[in-house]
């Protein structure tokens, strides 16, 4: 979706040097990519993308199980990378980002949180607009 405002939020996040890739995803599905898709990911992630993508699906098993009981964040480290999952409130969707293992993760978490809040707000607005039409 070319003009998806959620994609623009992801584009902003991807402009940070240490965000190597980001997306909104759920199990077995990537719901929203940044505007340039995987082509926009930093090049170093491409060779490890397949294995990370498979690992993500396993993590989403846990998110699906516990998101309704307040699970809000998950993360794992694989080789020289960390993958962060910021779960949207009471859904099994998450904002997912890949960062270098040596990155200043705490600072990146602040912008991940900002992106989660912004995307959550856009999702809530879509839901409201949809209900208004119905």
């Amino acid at each position, binding site marked *: 979706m070319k003009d998806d405002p959620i994609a623009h939020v992801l584009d*902003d996040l991807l*402009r*940070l040097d240490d965000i190597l890739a980001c997306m909104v995803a759920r199990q077995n599905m990537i719901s929203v990519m940044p505007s340039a898709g995987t082509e926009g990911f930093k090049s170093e992630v491409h060779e490890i993308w397949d294995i990370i993508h498979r690992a993500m699906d396993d993590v989403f098993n846990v998110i699906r199980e516990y998101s309704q009981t307040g699970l809000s964040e998950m993360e794992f480290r694989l080789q020289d990378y960390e993958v962060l999952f910021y779960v949207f409130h009471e859904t099994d969707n998450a904002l997912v980002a890949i960062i270098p*293992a*040596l990155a*200043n*993760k*705490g*600072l*990146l*978490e*602040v*912008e*991940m*949180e*900002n992106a989660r809040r912004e995307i959550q707000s856009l999702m809530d607005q879509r839901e409201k607009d949809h209900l208004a039409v119905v």
Partner: protein
Amino acid sequence: MKNDDFEASVGMTRKWDAREAGREVARNTIRKLKRPPSFFLLFSTIHYEKNGGFQEFLDGVWDVLPKGTPLIGGTIAGFINPEGCFVRGASAMAVSARRIDISLGIGYNTKRNPKRAARECSSMIQKGLKNSNYPNKWFISFVSGGKVPSFPIIGKKHVVDSFIGLKFFLIFFNKLCSLLQIGPGRDEDVLEGLSNNLKKFRGIAGTSCDELKLERNTQFFMKKTVTNSIVSLGISSDKDVKFTSATGLTPSGIKFTIDKKGGGGYILKKINKDRAVDEYLKLMGWPKEVLDERLYRKVFYYPFIQKTSNRLSSPRMLGLVYGDEFISAAKPLDEVDAEIFTSTGKSMIESVNDLFKDESYEFAFLISCGTKMETLGNNIYNVKKILDKKLGDDYLLLYVGGEFTKISDDEFAFMYQSDNALLM
């Protein structure tokens, strides 16, 4: 914050383009003021370096700001204001007052000659305020922070294993850093010099930094971008303000003596009469493997404090590991006895509460250690909740590389891991 005589306002931008960002932060900050600003404090994260450059950013600010407005500032790791918590963007604070005199000061080559930089800066401030008769005098300053050095063979690393010649190299470490203006910021030397020169002034200061990679930083002084500098505002006003400081640190019980230093006092060679790195690892109960390029994720959360007669404690951090010696980010004090301090996430958040005690204020300008933001991550929003409750819409908190507060001529300290406030 508004009353007839004294107004303060805060604005920000999240634009990526440097020129547009400069215009927006200036516009958003001064539009709330009833009168033109008496001074303007400007802060941005490092991102404009690659998105147009800081000069373009500053030019954008001056597209909007009234000509001649006293302006200082610099790059920081992040900030909190009523609009949220951010590690990308820019924020500013403007003050407008009827009964106020302002003087600007700048000192250059802070890493090469910190005392001279402090003298240059404080002389300008004193000269500018010499005819001012208001009872309250204070300064706000920003100084260039440390930069992880890059040397041939060694490269740009936080942890360097021993090799033949390293000890010989370390003899010249201080001189090389001074010449090339890299390595420890010497920010504490500059700020303590400034403080000593400005008797009867109180003040608050921060160390300019990047996104805590400690590779580069920039300061702003009127229409110029500078580096390796101290930039200051001297303020003389009939408005009384308060300066406070808190750390949220607790003693760990792990104590040591500093027995041998080198490199102008920055290199810890021996502690507890043993090789510094080996003994530190033994005291902390850490294996040698923890000392890797993720060094800052560990040592920054265990600052050490040396006992002094000054009522403000002064936490210091270990910055680099070269062989079996530590290079401290700030020069340890002359006192021999030291203790490791720690904090929890909870104490880091609640430390901000300690700045206010039970009093209420109309406006706060706060400076806190960037490692707090790095540690707390998205839990930094809990700090924002405290600030929103205490101050409503009127505050700006900066996360910087090092902090300095002067409450009186006898109570001042350069610190890490601290929260500091100028309260109005």
